[in-house]
């Protein structure tokens, strides 16, 4: 009996193995866009809470005026879901891509409509140019920005910082370095810094590196680096880490010291800024920390009087590069007039003026947007940084392959900052993790 069952089992296993061996997926292919042409359209996006509520309000009003029914599909796991749905021939009509990488994949496969003829030229020209370029693949416009965030902002405590010598924003990176050293010499650490973010620990460090790369080398080199046209461990990157070391990691520069950075949550890292006397004076982070769960409630209640902001300076006073991000709108149902109209509306001057901007959960990508619409001066100034930028680039780690952008880049920067690896090892590790 024993022998027979073993024999039967091996035969079965063998048969299954024979049947399946060599079965590999055909790669990429399969799936398709969307041939819906009705007035019922579906829109898919990743953002949540206030940003979602405000967006629905804004779009629903438009839909009502235009006799269109819009189905809203929110997914926090946008990238996986959009892939699955495209493969299953079930793409939404309009998608608001939270990261450009996957949008470019879809455009490459010919799934997205060319928006050049759909969105008015005047509207395209009013959008932040760097963000518009991010929506292009091979010179064609496949997606347009409909919301942005700004990451190269330095927050500071208004009153206390003046006493410490921060009376006017530094005009150049050298000024910023000098200011940091000046504050450090008084015995208080100039910077607040924290990169803990649960399973995503490390990303705030990558933003710092990207920001300094952009400032030092300009958007062309930055984009080459992001697209791996120059190696990740290029000497330029090593110099940037060295600079970051002097500015942030050296003794006396960051509140709590280098060792505390990796366990300090990015949301609350800035809070010592509002102590009396402050534990630190400057915090570089995206506009999203200025909300409940980030800054203390009493600070948020009186934001304009307590918090000041200045943009991360350029190499010279004329350079105004901005690191940011945003959601990009693209169309899957290429022949659907309602979907086209919706995207046209998202690019138009009216979009966001119906109460969305007032929520403070959204920043318009239009440089001519009336900043008095934003609920606070702080947010108005932040939006202005983006509108007046000389270069606007998207967060680089979001555009790198997953292995790097949300894998080794996060992990090795964490290892470097917490002292487990030196800068060279960290950069070499990231370079070797880049998929060929």
């Amino acid at each position, binding site marked *: 009996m024993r022998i027979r069952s073993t024999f039967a089992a091996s035969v079965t296993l063998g048969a299954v193995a024979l049947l*399946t061996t060599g079965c590999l997926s055909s790669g990429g292919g399969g799936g398709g866009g969307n041939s819906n042409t009705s007035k019922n359209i579906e829109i898919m996006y990743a953002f949540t809470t206030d940003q979602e509520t405000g967006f629905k309000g804004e779009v629903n009003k438009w839909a009502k005026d235009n006799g269109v029914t819009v189905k809203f599909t929110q997914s926090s796991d946008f990238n996986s879901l959009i892939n699955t749905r495209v493969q299953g021939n079930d793409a939404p009509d309009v998608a608001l891509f939270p990261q450009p990488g996957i949008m470019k994949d879809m455009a490459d496969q010919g799934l997205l409509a060319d928006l050049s003829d759909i969105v008015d030229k005047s509207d395209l020209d009013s959008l932040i140019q760097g963000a518009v370029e991010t929506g292009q693949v091979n010179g064609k416009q496949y997606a347009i920005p409909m919301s942005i965030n700004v990451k190269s902002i330095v927050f500071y405590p208004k009153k206390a910082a003046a006493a410490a010598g921060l009376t006017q924003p530094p005009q150049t990176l050298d000024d910023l370095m000098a200011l940091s050293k000046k504050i450090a010499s008084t015995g208080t650490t100039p910077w607040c810094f924290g990169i803990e973010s649960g399973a995503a620990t490390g990303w705030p460090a990558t933003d710092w590196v990207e920001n300094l790369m952009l400032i030092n080398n300009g958007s062309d080199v930055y984009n080459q680096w992001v697209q791996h046209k120059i190696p990740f461990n290029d000497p330029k990157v090593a110099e940037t880490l060295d600079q970051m070391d002097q500015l942030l990691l050296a003794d006396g520069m960051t509140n709590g010291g280098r060792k505390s950075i990796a*366990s300090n949550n990015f949301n609350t890292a800035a809070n*010592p800024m509002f102590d009396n006397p402050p534990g630190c004076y400057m915090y570089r982070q995206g506009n999203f920390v200025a909300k409940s769960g980030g800054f203390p409630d009493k600070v948020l209640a009186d934001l304009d009087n307590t918090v000041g902001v200045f943009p991360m300076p350029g190499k010279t006073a004329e350079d105004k590069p901005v690191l940011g991000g945003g959601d990009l709108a693209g169309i899957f149902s290429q022949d659907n007039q309602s979907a086209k109209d919706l995207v046209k509306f998202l690019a138009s001057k009216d979009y966001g003026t119906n109460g969305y901007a007032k929520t403070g959960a959204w920043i318009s990508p239009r440089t001519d947007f009336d900043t008095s619409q934003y609920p606070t001066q702080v947010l108005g100034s932040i939006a202005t940084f983006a509108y007046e930028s000389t270069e606007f680039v998207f967060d680089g780690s979001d555009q790198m392959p997953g292995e790097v952008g949300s894998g080794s880049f996060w992990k090795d920067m964490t290892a470097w900052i*917490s002292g487990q690896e030196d800068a060279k090892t960290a950069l070499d590790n990231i370079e070797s993790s880049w998929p060929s």
Partner: protein
Amino acid sequence: MIKILNALIAVVGGVAGAILLYWLLNKLAELLPGRWEDRVKPYLFLLPALAAIGLYLVYPTIQTFVYSFANNRSTEFVGFENYAKLLTSKTFQNTLFNTFLWILIVPASVIAFGLLIATLADRLRPRGEKTAKTLIFLPLAIGAVSAGAIWKFVYATRPPGQNQIGLLNGIWTAFGGDPVNWLQISTLRFNSLLLMVMLLWMQAGFAMVLLSAAIKGVPTETLEAARLDGAGEGSIFFRIVIPQIRTTIITVFITVLIGVLKTFDIVYVMTNGNFNTNVIAVDFFNQLFTNRNNGFAAAIVVMLLIIMIPVLVFQVRQFRAEEAAR
């Protein structure tokens, strides 16, 4: 309302479908001539179950095996490249080493603690025993992620000068120390040990309950005989009790061991494998869902499978031996 209706249809339809299937299979077998009917029938009745196992277990396993020799998008074969790359990378070597540490330390300490608690609780009065056991057993009812939330407050670190919300740092700073980033100390894998303490905390209760029952099952006659012969408490425990509860110890050991090999949530929640605490299951998850590298992920799973096989073989043998002894 519709959901309830759906559920009802699913239950009724499922059962009816199964009955119909077996009825058809039976009819099919009855078409065959006499002797063949009896020969074929058992296999026909086994068929649905075998098909399900084949579809949900055997097929994916083999497919994983095949994918482990293919590239990151599973479009081309690359031979042993995935294995070679993984096994020569320093990071993965560290991951494997951590996993072996977990295997080496956790099951043994769970047994040791479980035995200790079970033996000590056995000596308490009934009320005390119940309270002690309930307390020790409680963490078992807590999911690993919730345990992570609890232990984050034990290991939490705030920069010096701020209020320490972490228990360990609270004690440490009260004695005048500077706050320590416990989970970042990878010297001698101290941080991995701290994570193992969490699993120990969760599993000790499980070991205790089974071992305690086994200890209570040791016949008092043997214990009394030993005492009459002048055996001390120590030799009674090691020479009488332990040999008699050996099978329970092995069962607990293997169960915990398999749990350890699958350890994912604790590490994922606490450090996500940072600071040199990575283990094989977390690495697999990150390879598949962050890096989208099917090849590496499959190769890791195959290696995990290879590590597991001896354990499973041992368990099956043990089970057979027990059955035979009965």
